[in-house]
C-alpha cells in the first residue's frame, strides 16, 4: 500500500498500479482515449495528462500521462490545474482538426469548451487518432493481422499490402476497441466483412441466430481448448436451456417435497 494525494485528498493505492485507475476509482473524471484494461498502456493520446509533484521537489512539478504512471508513495497529483486543462484543450483542439466527424471527440472537446477547431481541418481525416488500440488488441489475441503502415503523416493502420489480412479471424476486437469507431465492418446474411475479408458466421442450431465467425470459433477451439459444441448454440438459447433445466429441478424438488 502506498499513500498518494489526489486533488488535496490522501488516498490509499496499490504500489505499481497506474495513476489513471486510481483517479477513476475515486470518481474523478479525466478524458482518456487510448486506455483500455485489455491492453498495455502506451500513452498515445496524451489526454489523461495530470500534474504531479512531491513534497521534496520544492514546488517543482511535471506533467505525466496518468495511464502510464505507476503510483508511488508521497505522490501529489492534481488533475485539473489550469496548465493541465490547457494541455487537454490543445490536444482536443488538434484532434478535432484531425477527426472533425468523430462524435466522441466532439463531445470531449465540448466539455472543454471547444466547439470548433482553431486549426485547419485535415482534408482526408478519417477519425483515426493513431492510438494503436486496434493493433495492440489484435496482438494480445495472438493474431497481429493489422499494423501501422508507412510513416510520418501518411502513416495509417492497415492490413499487409492493403489486401485481405491473412491472419484476421473476424473477431471484431479491433473495431470494438477503437475509441473513435473508425473500423468498418458488417454482418449480412451469414457473412461478416471486416478489412475487406469475408467470414462465414456460425448460426445457432436452435434459433438460427448468427453467433461468431467460424474462423474465430476454430481459433478459440484450438488455442483455448473450448469444446466445439460451445459455439453451436447461441448465448440466448443456452440461457433458456439453463432456465428450463432449473425449472425441471425445482419442479422435481417440489414433487419430492409433496
Amino acid at each position: 500500500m502506498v499513500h498518494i494525494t489526489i486533488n488535496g485528498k490522501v488516498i490509499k493505492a496499490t504500489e505499481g498500479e497506474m495513476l489513471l485507475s486510481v483517479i477513476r476509482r475515486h470518481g474523478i473524471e479525466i478524458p482518456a482515449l487510448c486506455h483500455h484494461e485489455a491492453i498495455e498502456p502506451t500513452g498515445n493520446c496524451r489526454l489523461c495528462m495530470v500534474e504531479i509533484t512531491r513534497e521534496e521537489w520544492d514546488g517543482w512539478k511535471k506533467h505525466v500521462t496518468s495511464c502510464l504512471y505507476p503510483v508511488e508513495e508521497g505522490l501529489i497529483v492534481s488533475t485539473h490545474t489550469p496548465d493541465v486543462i490547457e494541455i487537454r484543450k490543445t490536444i482536443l483542439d488538434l484532434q478535432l482538426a484531425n477527426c472533425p466527424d468523430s462524435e466522441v471527440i466532439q463531445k470531449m472537446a465540448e466539455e472543454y469548451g471547444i466547439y470548433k477547431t482553431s486549426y485547419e481541418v485535415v482534408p482526408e481525416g478519417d477519425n483515426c487518432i493513431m492510438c494503436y488500440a486496434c493493433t495492440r488488441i489484435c496482438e494480445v489475441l495472438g493474431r497481429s493481422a493489422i499494423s501501422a503502415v508507412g510513416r510520418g503523416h501518411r502513416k495509417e493502420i492497415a492490413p499487409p499490402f492493403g489486401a485481405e489480412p491473412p491472419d484476421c479471424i473476424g473477431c471484431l476486437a479491433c473495431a470494438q476497441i477503437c475509441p473513435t469507431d473508425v473500423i468498418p465492418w458488417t454482418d449480412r446474411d451469414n457473412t461478416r466483412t471486416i478489412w475487406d475479408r469475408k467470414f462465414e458466421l456460425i448460426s445457432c442450431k436452435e434459433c438460427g441466430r448468427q453467433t461468431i465467425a467460424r474462423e474465430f470459433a476454430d481459433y478459440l477451439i484450438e488455442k483455448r481448448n473450448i469444446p466445439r459444441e460451445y459455439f453451436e448454440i447461441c448465448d440466448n438459447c443456452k440461457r433458456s436451456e439453463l432456465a428450463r433445466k432449473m425449472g425441471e429441478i425445482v419442479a422435481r424438488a417440489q414433487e419430492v417435497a409433496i
Partner: protein
Amino acid sequence: MTQQDVTRLQGIFGRNPREPGSLIAVLQDIQREFHYLPREALSETAKALEVPLSKVYSAATFYSAFSLTPRGENIIRVCKGTACHIKGADLLLDQLESGLGIKPGETTPDLKYTIEVVNCVGACAMAPVMIVNAKYHGNVPCNRALRLVKKA
C-alpha cells in the same frame, strides 16, 4: 518468384539467425539482392522468422531504404538541398530525366537506373552533389551528369 529467387532467399535466411530480431537485417539483404522487397519474399520472411506478416509489412513500409516496387540496379540520388539547389541541381536533374527518360522516384524499364531526390547530404561545400550508388560526385557540371551515371 522463380526457383532461382527462392534459392537466393533461402541463402539470405541461412545467413541470418532465424529469429524475429533479424527482421531488419533480412529485409536489408533482400533489398540489396533483389533491389526491392518482392511481396512473396515478405511473406516468406514472415514465415522464416516467425514474425507476423503485418509487422514485416510495417517495417518494410516504414524505412525509406526499403522499396516495395522494383528499383534500378543503380540508384542515382540527386541532392536538392538549399546549397545544391542554388548551384543548379535542377539543371542536373533535367539532364538525367531527359537522358534516362524517367522522373525522380521512377525506374527505367530495363531496371538499370532509379532517380531519387534527396535533401542535403551534408556535403554542401561541393554542391551540386549527386550520389551514384555509394559514390559521391561533387561540383557536378550538369552536362557531365549523364556520363558519370553511365560510367557507374
